[in-house]
């Protein structure tokens, strides 16, 4: 079981819950179960091809999963997953 912290704008897709606990032995299994239980979340997190969207980072407790095995990283009871966006920008590049 792992707890997933739901960012505020995504709580409309989880019945206003700010966290959801689902079973799964790996990060991939947990996210699959999460989006199976709350299908409207899927588009927010994954592309149509099933890959994490470019602006989505997943943290297992305080570690970025990219450095600990990505979706194969093992989860145990009491673990917390966070969905954290990648954000940058600036005037370089000019007006849109």
């Amino acid at each position, binding site marked *: 079981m792992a707890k997933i*912290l739901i*960012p*505020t*704008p*995504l709580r409309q897709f989880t019945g206003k819950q*700010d966290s959801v606990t689902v079973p799964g032995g790996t990060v991939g299994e947990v996210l699959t179960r999460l989006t199976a239980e709350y299908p409207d979340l899927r*588009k*927010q997190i994954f592309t149509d091809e099933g890959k994490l969207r470019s*602006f989505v*980072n997943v*943290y297992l407790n*305080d570690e*970025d999963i990219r450095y600990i095995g990505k979706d194969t990283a093992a989860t145990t009871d009491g673990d917390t997953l*966070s969905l*954290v*966006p*990648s*954000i*940058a*920008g*600036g*005037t*370089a*590049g*000019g*007006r*849109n």
Partner: protein
Amino acid sequence: MIHIENDPWAAMVAHARASYPNECCGAMLGSTDGETKTVREAIALQNAFEGAQAARYELRPEDLLAADKAARERHMDLIGIYHSHPDCDAYFSKTDLQNSCPWYTFVVLSIRKGEFDHANSFLPNFDQTDAPKEELTY
């Protein structure tokens, strides 16, 4: 629409002025009631862009994670991101759009010659192809 209360607004402007001529960035915490978002606290975050920061900013995901935790502890929500455009209008640039996230409101502050000039708020879409303006009051 998004409304920024006096204290966080003053903090955001002060941060943008202090960072001039570089870009600043930070998180906005508050609450959402229907279509209205109210910012009650601004958290200044480090511009982590590696290179000249006069025209670029980058947030560390770890810092955003910490801001989200702070919001939860204070019974608020992380509702948006702010950054400054030194000596430029407060538009949503190509770089802003290509590195945006549709989950959040983005407030841009124009700082000219070190002083606040104007600000706008934007709501980027999913495909990072457009970011309509959102009504902003402060």
